[in-house]
């Protein structure tokens, strides 16, 4: 599936909750729970992305010209957000990852989590995903 297609799928998935933010967050938490775990050996200090409060681990690999991300986070809401990012960006071509605008976050009403003043390390994670993808191109 293309990046935009996954984004669309996610938007539809969240649409059914309408304005019910509680349901939306419950779904996000479920997504967090279902995030396939990163291998324990990858949860190293170097792979950590430090937000002020919640920590995110990210591993990037290139296989068949596609980038495979695995990730984890210690806070479950962050982990839900991480799960969304991995779902959208993993198994995509590096070029597409670098270009991705990720506007679905705004559409589904989770934009606040990508505020640069946010203490959750998500913005840093996305930057890291893109940087890793870029490194694979070069």
């Amino acid at each position, binding site marked *: 599936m293309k990046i935009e297609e996954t984004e669309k799928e996610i938007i539809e998935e969240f649409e059914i909750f309408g304005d019910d933010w509680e349901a939306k*967050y419950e779904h996000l938490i479920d997504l967090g729970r279902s995030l396939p775990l990163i291998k324990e050996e990858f949860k190293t200090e170097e792979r950590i992305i430090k937000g002020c*409060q*919640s920590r995110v681990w990210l591993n990037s690999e290139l296989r068949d010209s596609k980038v495979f991300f695995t990730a984890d986070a*210690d*806070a*479950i809401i962050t982990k839900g957000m991480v799960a969304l990012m991995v779902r959208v960006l993993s198994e995509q071509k590096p070029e597409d990852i670098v270009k991705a605008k990720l506007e679905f976050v705004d559409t589904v009403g989770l934009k606040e989590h990508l505020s640069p003043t946010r*203490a959750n390390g998500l913005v840093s994670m996305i930057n890291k995903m893109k940087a890793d993808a870029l490194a694979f191109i070069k």
Partner: protein
Amino acid sequence: MKDLKNIRDQFPVLNQKINGYDLVYFDNGATSQKPLSVIESISNYYKASNANIHRGVHTLSRTATELFEKARKTVADHFKVKNDQQIIFTAGTTDSINLVVNGLSKNYLQKGDEIILSSYEHHSNILAWQLWAEENGGKLKVIPLLEDQSLDYSKLEELINQKTKLIAIAHVSNTLGVITDLEKIKVLAKKNNIAVLVDGAQSAPHMPVDLEKLDVDFFVCSAHKMYGPTGIGVLYLSEKWLKDLQVSKPGGGTIKTVTFEKTEYAENALRFEPGTPHIAGAIGFAAAIDFMNAVGMQTIFEHEHELVQYAQQKMSEIPEVIVYGKSNNKAGVISFNVKNNHPFDVGTLMDKYGIAVRTGHHCTQPLMQCLNIQGTVRISFAIYNTKSEVDFFIEKLKKVITMLN
């Protein structure tokens, strides 16, 4: 608290919705909200009397100087300090502590000297000492915690030796709310001729503080946690240190005479207030103190204490909740965690219900290491908080726990 409605009406910020819910502001330990009287004292100053102070011969400058010096007097009176020159205006608690450390390191602190801190110090009362120690071969020692997260004062005596020069300690722990037993500390400090710095950032807003009775060497606090403006705080110096503390931050205004070869510094508070001070801040701070005194510091303490007792009681009924700082001797702060949950998740969801709590290490990472946790969720009260806010908080906390588990 019959007048609570009246008090709340003085805080325009409280009257707003967050995500559709009434704002419940439980982050007073980070910074308090400001009453209209404070906000207006600042506006009025800028609208009517703004000028640079000291040395001015014109009317506005004289008015501004008088307002500024009256603010110093207001602070001095509030803390029962007879000589208002012992009150130095700084940019805040952190700034005050740095001024002490830098001043002391010029002649009082020597290579090999030791400083004693507590396990629950705020970074602002650790880092400057640590930097001094690293650069000058000094040493920091730490009063350990008991099981109930109060300090193990019985260990203090062992920490003291010939080289101990100062004890720097929080009056109230910003993370736990625990009130330090300063009497125990002072007895040993006096006996061993050790200076004492009290970090009052979390006591000054929440309880009566009588610096004459307290009788320590240094006391520091921040206006912004005391219903006052940002950018201003206090460094109280004992009579001795008003004379002996070395100038470490010079500038316009701190001097008697200057040549390129040599400077003679002014006497009294002036020499510790370099450059144009935060005049509007001092004036707003005085208005904040007037506000607190109109309510009464004892009333504030009792009101917040009641809220703490009430909230802790309710929280103890929720099995998933762990409260830190079990001691009963607490000011208006409660730190807790929900078992197996990250404080960030709890805080994020509480915010969705309009409840402002703080999460994380609260600038007390060493304490987090002692407790072996990543962080906590902290609620902290002010005079305008109510029992029904606590009820709402408890209700939503339960909801959040369900959502997360």
